[in-house]
C-alpha cells in the first residue's frame, strides 16, 4: 500500500511536468496548426540555462527570470523562422521544427556542455510523509507551481484582452483578423508563452532528475503524448493527459518492468490515436479518412 502510494506520488510529480510540456504543444498547435517538435528542447533550455546562470553566482530569482526570458526568445526565434518559410506544408513544418530541435541541442552542447547537471532544490532537501510514502518538498513545489500555472493560464485566456484574442485567433483566424487582432503578434506571443511554460517545467524538473542537452528528446515526445491523450484541441487536456501518463508510467515501472517504462507513453499514444483520436475528453475526431 505504501509502495503504491509512493509510486502514485512520483507519478503525479512527473505527470505535472509532462502536463507543462504538453500544454506548450497545445498552445502552439491551436494557434498555428503546427506540431512543434522542438518543444522538449525548450524544456531543456530552461533547465540548462538555470544551471549555468546559477553557477555565475546570480541570485536565484534573477536566474529564474532570465532562464525563462532566454527560452521565450528561442520560442520567438522559431516563430520567426516559420514566418519567413516559403512553404508551410505539414511535412515542411515537421522537418523545420525537427531541424530546430537538432539546432538547439547542438547549441546547448556548445554553449553549455554535454555533461549531466543538477540544480539544487529550491526548497531544500526535506520531505514529509503521507500514508507512509515520502513526498519531497521539491515534488510538492512542482505540483503547486504547476497548478498555479494552469489556473493562471485559464484566467489569462478567459479574462485578459490578449488572452481572449489568442483564443479567438485559434478558433477562427479570419474572424479574428476582421476584429482587428494582429495575427502575427498573437502567434508570436503564443510561441513565447509556450516556450515559457516549457522553461518553467525544465527548471522545476532539474533538481529531481539531472538535466543535459539531450533530455529534450524524450520529454518532448512524452509531453506530446500527454497532449494527445488529453486532446490536442482541449487547452487543458494536457494536464489530465500528463497526470494519467505520469501515473501509468510510474505504476508500470514499479510493478511490471522498468525497461519498458518509456514505452508506456507511446503505447498510450497509439491507443488514443486508434480509439479516441480526439483525446479522453473530446468528441472531436482527429482527421480520419
Amino acid at each position, binding site marked *: 500500500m505504501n509502495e503504491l502510494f509512493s509510486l502514485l506520488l512520483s507519478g503525479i510529480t512527473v505527470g505535472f511536468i509532462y502536463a507543462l510540456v504538453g500544454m506548450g504543444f497545445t498552445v502552439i498547435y491551436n494557434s498555428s496548426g503546427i506540431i512543434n517538435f522542438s518543444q522538449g528542447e525548450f524544456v531543456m533550455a530552461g533547465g540548462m540555462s538555470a544551471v549555468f546562470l546559477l553557477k555565475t553566482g546570480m541570485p536565484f530569482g534573477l536566474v529564474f527570470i532570465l532562464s525563462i526570458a532566454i527560452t521565450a526568445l528561442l520560442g520567438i526565434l522559431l516563430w520567426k523562422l516559420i514566418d519567413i518559410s516559403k512553404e508551410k506544408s505539414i511535412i515542411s513544418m*515537421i522537418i523545420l521544427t525537427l531541424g530546430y530541435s537538432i539546432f538547439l541541442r547542438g547549441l546547448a552542447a556548445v554553449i553549455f556542455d554535454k555533461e549531466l547537471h543538477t540544480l539544487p532544490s529550491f526548497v531544500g532537501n526535506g520531505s514529509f510523509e503521507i500514508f507512509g510514502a515520502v513526498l519531497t518538498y521539491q515534488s510538492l513545489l512542482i505540483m503547486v507551481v504547476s497548478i498555479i500555472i494552469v489556473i493562471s493560464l485559464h484566467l489569462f485566456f478567459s479574462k485578459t484582452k490578449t488572452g481572449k484574442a489568442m483564443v479567438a485567433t485559434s478558433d477562427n483566424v479570419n474572424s479574428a483578423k476582421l476584429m482587428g487582432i494582429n495575427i502575427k503578434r498573437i502567434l508570436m506571443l503564443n510561441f513565447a508563452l509556450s516556450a515559457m511554460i516549457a522553461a518553467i517545467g525544465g527548471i522545476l524538473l532539474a533538481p529531481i532528475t539531472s538535466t543535459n542537452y539531450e533530455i529534450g528528446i524524450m520529454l518532448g515526445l512524452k509531453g506530446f503524448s500527454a497532449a494527445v491523450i488529453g486532446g490536442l484541441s482541449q487547452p487543458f487536456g494536457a494536464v489530465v493527459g500528463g497526470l494519467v501518463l505520469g501515473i501509468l508510467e510510474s505504476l508500470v515501472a514499479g510493478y511490471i518492468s522498468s525497461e519498458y517504462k518509456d514505452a508506456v507513453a507511446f503505447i498510450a499514444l*497509439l491507443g488514443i490515436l486508434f480509439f479516441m483520436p480526439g483525446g479522453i475528453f473530446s468528441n472531436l475526431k482527429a482527421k480520419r479518412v
Partner: protein
Amino acid sequence: MKNIKLKNIKDLIILSAILVIIPFLLKNGFYYEIVILCILNAIICIGLNLLIGYAGQISLGHGGLAALGAYITVILTTNYAFPALLSLFISVVFMAIFAYVISKPILKLQGHYLAMATLGVGIIIYITLNAQANITGGPDGMGVGLFSVFGYAIDTNLKWYIFSAVFLILLIAIFKNIINSPFGRIMRGIRDSSQAVSSVGADVAKYKSYVFVISVIVAVVASSMYAFFSGFISPGEASFNRSIELVVMVVFGGIGRIYGALIGAVFLTVLPQMLTSFEDYETLVYGAIIIFVMIFMPKGIISLFDRFNKAIHANS
C-alpha cells in the same frame, strides 16, 4: 518507338556510368564505406519517398521498422545459422505482414496524427530492441556474420559496392515503371484527393497499405544489407534520430522525385562526415542546414538542379 525508350532510360544510363566510374576514384576503404552507406540509405529513401512523396503519407517510424527487419535477419543468420538469403526472405515476409497489419489502423489517420502514430510504433520497437537483451544483445548491439549468396561470399568492399549499385539501379528502374503505371497513378492521386480516387473505383485504404508495405520491404532489405556489410547492428538503428534522418533525407532531396530521394540520401550521408571537422559544432551546423533548406528550398535540393536545367535549356 525505340527513340522514346532510350530517352526514358537516359537517366539510368547516366547513373550507371557514374556508378561504374566511382570505384576508380575511391582512395581507401573508408571512402568505400561511405559510398556504400550512401547507396543503401538511398535505397531506403527511395522506398520511403514512395510513401511520403507519392502517396502523401508521413512516416516517422521507418528507422524502427527497418531495424526490426534487419534484426530478424541478423538473429536468424547469426544465432540460428540460417542461410543469409533465407533469413532475409523470412524477415521480409514477416515485416510485410506486420506492416500490412499495422497499416490498417494507422493509415486511417491523417497529417500530424499519422506522423505521431508512426513515431510511436518506431519508438516502441526501439525500446523493445533495447529491453530484450537476451535475444538482441541489448543496447550494445550484436555482431553479424558473413553474407553469402548460394555459397558465394560477399566479403570485400568492391563486392559489396557492386551488389548495392546493381540493387540501386534495378530498384530505380522498377519504381519508375510502377510510378507511371495505373497503380502509380492511383498512388499519386491519393496524395491530392482520396475522394477522387475512390470515385474511380479504387479502394484508397488498400492502396495506402500496399505502398506502406512496399516502402517497409525496401527499407528492411537495405537495412539488413547494411548490417551484414558493417558486421554489426545496434538498437540505435531503430531510434527516433534515425527515423528523422531518413525523413529529412527524403524531404531535403526533394519530395516526390526518385532522384530527389537519391540526392538527399547522398547529401545527408556525406554531410556528417564533412562536419566532423566542426567537431563540437557538428550538431549545431547540421540543424542549421536543415532549417535553412526547409525555409528557403521547401521543394528540396533537387529544385536547384531544376533551375539549373531550366537555365541551360533557356539558353539553347
